[in-house]
C-alpha cells in the first residue's frame, strides 16, 4: 500500500468510526446481543442450575462464534460495508473527492480496507467477549483450546470480512444506502436460508455465499443455522472469491463511470 493509499484509508476510516449510529449499532449487533444472551443464560443457570447449564464452555463458545460469524456479525458487516461504499455518494461529498483529480478507482479502493478495519475491530471486540464468557462462566465445563480459539477468530474475520467487502461493492454499485441495506439484509437473513433449504435447487445452492462461508466454520453449523449444503473446500473458495471479485469489479466500475 502506498503512503497516499494509507492516508486515504485513514480518511475513510475516520468517516466510519465517527459515524456514531453505525458504530453503536454494530457494537449492539455483536457485543450487545451477546452480552444480553450471556446475561440471560447466567441468570437462568443461577436460578435453576439443574435445568440450565452454565453460560460458558466449548458449546457456548461455539454458539458465540456462530452468532458473530453467521448471524449478527454479517449484519454489522453489511451496515459497515454499505456506509463505506455509499456514504460519500449519499452525502454528495464524492464529487468533491473526484475534483481533486485522484483516480476514482483509488477512491473506491480505499473504502475496502477502511470498512474491513472497522468491521474486524467490532468483531474482535465481540470475540473477546465470547472468549472471556466461555472461560469465566464455564463452571467446570471444558473450555476452548488454543487451536479452536484461533480457528474461530480466523473464521469470524473471514466470514464477516467477505460479507463486508461484498457490501462495499454492492453499495458502490447501487449508490443508495437504503436500497443496499434492505437488499443485502433481506438476502442475508431471508433469501439465503430460504434458497439453501430448497432441495430441488441441488448443487446450485453452492453458489450461495453463506453456504460457501459456512464450509470453513470450525464449529458445527449442521442443523444450527438452516440447511448446510455440502461442498469441497475448493468449491467454497471459488464461490467466495467469485462473489468478492464480481462485487468489487462492479463497485469499482460504477464508481469510475457514474456522473458524480
Amino acid at each position, binding site marked *: 500500500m502506498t*503512503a*497516499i493509499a494509507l*492516508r*486515504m484509508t*485513514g*480518511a475513510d476510516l*475516520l*468517516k466510519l468510526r*465517527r*459515524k*456514531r449510529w453505525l458504530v453503536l449499532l454494530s457494537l449492539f449487533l455483536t457485543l450487545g446481543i451477546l452480552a444480553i444472551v450471556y446475561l440471560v443464560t447466567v441468570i437462568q443457570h443461577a436460578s435453576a442450575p439443574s435445568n440450565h447449564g452454565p453460560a460458558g464452555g466449548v458449546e457456548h463458545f461455539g454458539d458465540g462464534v456462530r452468532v458473530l460469524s453467521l448471524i449478527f456479525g454479517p449484519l454489522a458487516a453489511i451496515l459497515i460495508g454499505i456506509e463505506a461504499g455509499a*456514504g460519500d455518494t449519499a*452525502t*454528495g*461529498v464524492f*464529487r*468533491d*473527492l*473526484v*475534483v*481533486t*483529480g*485522484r*483516480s476514482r478507482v483509488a*477512491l473506491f479502493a480505499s473504502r475496502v480496507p477502511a470498512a474491513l478495519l472497522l468491521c474486524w475491530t467490532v468483531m474482535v471486540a465481540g470475540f473477546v467477549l465470547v472468549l472471556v464468557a466461555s472461560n469465566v462462566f464455564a463452571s467446570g465445563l471444558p473450555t476452548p483450546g488454543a487451536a479452536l480459539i484461533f480457528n474461530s477468530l480466523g473464521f469470524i474475520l473471514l466470514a464477516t470480512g467477505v460479507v463486508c467487502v461484498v457490501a462495499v461493492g454492492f453499495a458502490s454499485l447501487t449508490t443508495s444506502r437504503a436500497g443496499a441495506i434492505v437488499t443485502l439484509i433481506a438476502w442475508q437473513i431471508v433469501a439465503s436460508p430460504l434458497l439453501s433449504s430448497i432441495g430441488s435447487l441441488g448443487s446450485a445452492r453452492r453458489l450461495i455465499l453463506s453456504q460457501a462461508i459456512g464450509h470453513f466454520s470450525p464449529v458445527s453449523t449442521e442443523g444450527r443455522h438452516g440447511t448446510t449444503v455440502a461442498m469441497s473446500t475448493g468449491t467454497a473458495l471459488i464461490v467466495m472469491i467469485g462473489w468478492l471479485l464480481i462485487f468489487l469489479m462492479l463497485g469499482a466500475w460504477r464508481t469510475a463511470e457514474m*456522473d*458524480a
Partner: protein
Amino acid sequence: MATHIESLCDSGKLRERWTRVRQADPESMTSRSTTGEEPSGADLHAGSPAIETRALTKHFGERTALDGVDLHVPRGSAFGFLGPNGAGKTTMIRTLLGLTHASSGEMHLLGRPVPAERAQALTRVGAIVEEPRFHMYLTGRQNLRLVAAVRGPEADALIEPALARVGLADRAGEKVKSYSMGMRQRLGVARCLLADPLLLILDEPTNGLDPGGIQEFREMVRAMVEQEGRTVFISSHLLDEVERTCDAAAIVDRGRVVTQGPIAELAEGGTRHELILGVDDPGRALGTLQGSPLVIEAHASDEGLRVVLAGGPETAAQVNAALVQAGLGVMRLEPVRHSLEQRFLEITARLDAPAEGADAPHEEVPS
C-alpha cells in the same frame, strides 16, 4: 467632472487589463510563484489560458445541454459565467471537472488537455459544484482532513491557513451540521484552497449568503485574484454579483456562449461610449454636437443631452472643450454606465425573438 471622466476611462483600464491577463504573464499569475516555490506540473503551462474549450458539446439523451461551447478564460482574472437557470452553467462546470463526460469537443484546464491529463490539471484546481457538501457529523477541520488525505501530504499543511483565510479557524472544531449556510460556503472555499489552486471554479457561490457574507465573499475573490494571482471562475445567474466581482464574463444561454469579454465591454455592447451632458443652452449645444466628428449621435433626453462618442473615453474631454469653445457653459458631463443586466436582457430577449430552432446569434467582443 474629472472623477466622471476618470471613471469613464476605467473601461479603458479594464481593456488593458484584459489584454494583459490574456497574455498571461506567468510571473504574476501563479500563486506559488509569489512564494518562491518550485512550480508544479500544472505551472509548466503557465502561458496558457486557465480554461479553454473548443466546440464543447454535451448531450443528455436528445437534449443538448452544451452546444459547441468555445470559452477562453485568461489566467489571473475573476471570470463570470453568466446565464439564466438551466442555461448549462453547472453542466459546463461538471464537464470541465470530469464529473460527467463530454459528448464531443476539446477542453484544456491550466493548459492540460482534459480528460487525457485530468488528474494533473486538477492538482491545482479547487472547485465547488452546486453547493458545498460535507459529512455533517464531522467537524469542519475533519472534513478538510478527508480531502487533504486524498490530495496528498502537502495539503495537510494548508488546512489551518485555509481555515484562517476564510475566517473559520475558531469554529473549525465544531460539527458542520451546526454551521450556517454562509459558513458552509466558506468551508467549501477553504476546501478548495487545499489545492493551493491556480484556478478556482465556484458554482453559484453566493447562494444562501446574506448581504454581509456576499460582500466578504466578493472581497475574498478580489484578493485571490489581485493579491494572489489566482484565477476565479464564477458561475452565477446574479448579474449584479458578476458585474461587481468579475473582470470578464461569458454570457451563456441554452448551452451556448452568446458573448464573452471584459465586463465593461459586455455592458457597453462593444466599444460604444456615451455621455449625459448638462449645458446652459441645450438647443445650441445639440447643433454643435451633431455637426462634430467627435460625436456619432446626440439627442435630448429627460436627463440632459445624450451623446454617443465617436472615439474612446478620452473623447469626452474633447467634447467638453468643443462646447466651451462654442461659448456654452457645461454644468455636467457624466459617462453613461450601462449595466450588465441591461445588456444581458437585451441579448436573451434577442435570442427569444427568432423562430424556435433558429440559430442563436453569437457576438464577439473585441479584446
